[in-house]
């Protein structure tokens, strides 16, 4: 059989096989089999070449195995029918197992050879005299375990002895062999123990007597010997013991076989558990535990002494050094797995036990680290050490005081920064700059000192948002307004133009602050209003910046938030296009507006312009372009209504009656009023008002700047305040003079305080208070919509969960109060969208 194997190996090697050609030599192998089989055993082969050969073939074996199996079986079937039954599986296993452990070279090959031997001699179960065989075997086993040399032929014979015993008739002696071997090994080991002990007692404290080295050498010898023994007994292992072992499946599900032998199983399980779960139990019990308990008391003394010696910085510094020392000590002398325990032991003694002492100084350290303290740098190092020390104990809340103190410190400084003296007109820049410097400083500090740990970033966020949204009693936070004003100033045309990139950076930084603002909806209102003003009056420094800012807001708050801003922005672009088309239209039709005409057509609903669509009967000069444009617009679009927003229109007039030419920039009603004096030099106020069809309030607002600028002179009551009687007379000041040639009247009382979201509703000037009322209404709508959406999806929901979901939905826009949500729920119950679920107090259900 061996020859077949080797022949095969030879074929393989000599032909540089690829697996596909296996079929070629398989027949030849079969033919050779009968010839080779009776060949004389051992000496025939050069043992040294076997491992090499097998090693070479190893990678091919998986592919070759099937072919090999058939070849071998057919060849054996042809050659030795009587041996077939018992031999075949054995041969196959030997060939195939040889493939696996090939790398270990010698031993498996010996196995292989041995099996061939026994095969040659006799594989048939036969009567074996146990005592005699065991006596021989025992001798060899003793040799093997003792690492003494064992002759190959003897080894081979013993190998077949093991086999013979296992398959002995009338009944297999495997169990007996197993027990005897165990007894032998036990004896052997106790012999070893004597050798290790030699003549010193275990209690001896003399560490240099070589006990450990004796132990190690005995252990090495034994484990190596046993490994060889394992090879010798491989048949027993393979066939007999394996069968007795309980498989995992049997352990879990039980089986008929295992039930009968509960004790045996229990023992096996125990062994298994021992090996799997605590391979180092002995080490832990004998070494680690005493070590740790000794270390603990040492550390405790060390820590206590250290505390006595100096302040907390001193303490932390040395404790950290000690920790490092301890860890490196553990690395050198202890098993790797115990490092955690060593560390934990140290931390318990040096950190956990003195937490109060560590915590006591946190506030002072933080304060000194943040302020311009002479020791700021040192304090920062202290804090870094503190964090390093406390971090491993964060599970027990050791970090909590540090986080809280960090939060308090940031908040305290933030409030101080905001309250610092500043120019009232510069409140917005002061606010944003203060917040940015706070955020920048603490982000850097926390990143530096606390490694940017999430908990501290969170604490900073919380502090920032508390500072940003801080409000006095009974007043709403000014943050949204200030921030919107800040953005407005940056985006406006300025005389001292900062560089574009500078502005971009500042705007990007404003977003940082914006993220902390709770009342984002209020911000949106302010921002939208400022944007409308910029766009309508063409005050924007750059449209790219405007768009970039809207996109930033969108990125922070989503599409919904910037929808209207986008639409406003689009309108401006569309208007530019429209103007070009209109001019083309005029040229095509030989028409003229007789004046420079530029129009912006805004869509209703997107612009926060209020509904002050003051009626005005425009004078001829204005009516012509307006009419032309209306015709053009109607032809270009269908189904649209156009309304003139005269209070937003501006005209530019030149005086022709004055020695110097003055350029007057004025609102449309003002232009119209001045144009009335084209034919007369003075007229009754009432008459003029009626001609223009202005109502009382707008009349007064537009008239006042004209009088204040000295363009018109008034006699008597011209503004019609009070009862609405305006009996006075207005006269054009023909002697008007002014230092500047450009007179801007729009700004005098531009109705830029117009409030209200969306077209139609809201009029008059809206102040801060109104702003909030408006937001409140919008918020209620938003909350109700959110509640209905949630309930529609969930059908039944508990009160607290509903509140949570609503809050999380609203967060991107504003921070709703629970009271307001409750009110909204009540309102929805009244409107029969919801009802309280029957029989419960705190559950709502949705009414479809």
């Amino acid at each position: 059989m061996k020859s077949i194997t080797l022949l095969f190996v030879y074929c393989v090697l000599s032909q540089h096989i690829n697996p596909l050609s296996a079929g070629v030599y398989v027949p030849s192998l079969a033919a050779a089999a009968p010839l080779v089989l009776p060949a004389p055993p051992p000496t025939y082969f050069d043992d040294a070449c076997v491992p090499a050969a097998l090693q070479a073939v190893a990678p091919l074996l998986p592919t070759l195995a099937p072919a090999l199996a058939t070849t071998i079986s057919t060849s054996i079937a042809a050659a030795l029918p009587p041996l077939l039954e018992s031999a075949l599986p054995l041969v196959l296993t030997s060939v195939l197992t040889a493939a696996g452990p090939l790398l270990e070279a010698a031993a498996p090959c010996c196995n292989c050879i041995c099996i061939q031997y026994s095969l040659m001699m006799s594989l048939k179960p036969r009567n074996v005299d146990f005592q005699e065989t065991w006596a021989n075997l025992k001798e060899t086993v003793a040799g093997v375990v003792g690492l003494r040399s064992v002759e190959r032929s003897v080894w081979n014979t013993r190998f077949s002895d093991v086999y013979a015993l296992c398959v002995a008739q009338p009944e297999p002696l495997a169990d007996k062999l197993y027990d005897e071997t165990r007894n032998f090994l036990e004896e052997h080991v106790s012999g070893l123990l004597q050798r290790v002990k030699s003549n010193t007692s275990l209690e001896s404290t003399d560490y240099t007597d070589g006990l450990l080295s004796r132990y190690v050498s005995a252990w090495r010898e034994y484990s190596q010997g046993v490994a060889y023994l394992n090879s010798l007994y491989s048949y027993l292992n393979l066939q007999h013991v394996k069968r007795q072992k309980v498989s995992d499946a049997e352990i879990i599900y039980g089986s008929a076989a295992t039930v009968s032998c509960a004790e045996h199983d229990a023992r096996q399980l125990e062994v298994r558990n021992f090996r799997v779960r605590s391979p180092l139990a002995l080490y832990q019990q004998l070494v680690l535990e005493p070590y740790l308990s000794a270390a603990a008391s040492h550390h405790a003394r060390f820590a206590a002494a250290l505390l006595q010696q100096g302040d907390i910085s001193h303490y932390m510094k040395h404790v950290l050094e000690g920790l490092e020392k301890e860890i490196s000590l553990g690395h050198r002398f202890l098993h790797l797995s115990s490092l955690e325990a060593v560390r934990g032991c140290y931390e318990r003694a040096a950190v956990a036990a003195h937490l109060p002492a560590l915590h006591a100084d946190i506030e002072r350290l933080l304060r000194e680290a943040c302020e311009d303290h002479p020791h700021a740098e040192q304090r920062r190092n202290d804090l870094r050490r503190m964090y390093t020390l406390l971090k491993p104990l964060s599970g027990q809340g050791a970090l909590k005081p540090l986080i809280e103190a960090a939060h308090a410190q940031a908040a305290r400084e933030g409030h101080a920064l905001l309250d610092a003296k500043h120019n009232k007109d510069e409140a917005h820049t002061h606010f944003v700059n203060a917040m940015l410097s706070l955020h920048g400083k603490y982000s850097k500090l926390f990143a530096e000192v606390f490694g940017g740990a999430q908990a501290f970033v969170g604490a900073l966020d919380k502090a920032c948002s508390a500072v940003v949204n801080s409000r006095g009693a009974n007043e709403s936070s000014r943050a949204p307004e200030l921030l919107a004003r800040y953005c407005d100033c940056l985006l406006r045309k300025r005389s001292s133009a900062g560089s574009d990139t500078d502005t971009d950076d500042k705007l990007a930084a404003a977003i940082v602050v914006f993220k902390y603002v709770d009342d984002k909806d209020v911000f949106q209102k302010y921002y939208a209003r400022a944007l409308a003003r910029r766009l309508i009056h063409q005050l924007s420094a750059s449209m790219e910046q405007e768009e970039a800012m809207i996109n930033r807001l969108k990125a922070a708050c989503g599409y919904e938030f910037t929808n209207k801003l986008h639409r406003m922005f689009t309108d401006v672009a569309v208007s530019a296009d429209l103007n070009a088309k209109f001019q083309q239209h005029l040229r095509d039709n030989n028409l003229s507006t007789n004046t420079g005409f530029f129009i912006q057509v805004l869509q209703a609903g997107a612009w926060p312009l209020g509904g002050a669509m003051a009626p005005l009967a425009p004078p001829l000069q204005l009516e012509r372009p307006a009419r032309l444009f209306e015709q053009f617009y109607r032809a270009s679009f269908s189904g649209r209504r156009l309304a003139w927003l005269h209070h937003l229109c501006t005209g530019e007039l030149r005086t022709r009656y004055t020695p110097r030419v003055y350029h007057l920039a004025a609102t449309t009603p003002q232009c119209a009023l001045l144009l009335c004096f084209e034919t007369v030099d003075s007229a009754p106020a009432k008459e003029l008002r009626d001609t223009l069809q202005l109502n009382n309030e707008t009349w007064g607002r537009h008239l006042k700047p004209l009088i204040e600028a000295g363009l018109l002179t008034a006699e008597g009551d011209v503004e019609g305040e009070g009862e609405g009687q305006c009996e006075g007379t207005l006269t054009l000041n023909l002697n008007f003079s002014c230092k500047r040639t450009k007179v801007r009247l729009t700004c005098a009382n531009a109705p830029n305080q117009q409030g209200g979201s969306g077209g139609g509703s809201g009029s008059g000037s809206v102040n801060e208070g109104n702003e909030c009322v408006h937001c409140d209404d919008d918020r209620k709508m938003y909350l109700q919509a959110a509640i209905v959406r949630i309930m529609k999806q969930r059908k039944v929901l508990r009160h607290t969960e509903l509140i949570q979901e609503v809050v999380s939905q609203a967060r991107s826009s504003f921070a709703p109060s629970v009271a307001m949500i409750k009110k909204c729920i009540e309102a929805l119950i009244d409107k029969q969208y919801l009802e309280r679920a029957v029989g419960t107090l705190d559950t709502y259900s949705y009414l479809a």
Partner: protein
Amino acid sequence: MSGEDCDTLDRGDNDGQKPDKMFTLKKWNAVAMWSWDVECDTCAICRVQVMDACLRCQGESKKDSYGKQDCVVVWGECNHSFHFCCMSLWVKQNNRCPLCQQEWSIQRMGK
């Protein structure tokens, strides 16, 4: 507001004598607002203002921000108006005006 361009053209056309015109209007920056010419500014189908995109379009336009004009208004012969998107879905089920139950036929479309 930005009438600088006119300055150079007309400078000095006033030479002290009594002008035939007191004022000239050099420039007019007009602002107008458009809205759909509808009787009711809410779409009865989706309950959203017709000036805004309908609910469905609002949901979808999260992808692209511009192009509001896509969601136009449609008027029926009965002069009731809805979002075109809403109405085209509605007529698939019921070819009558949801408000007056008249047979639906389009009078005009917004543009």
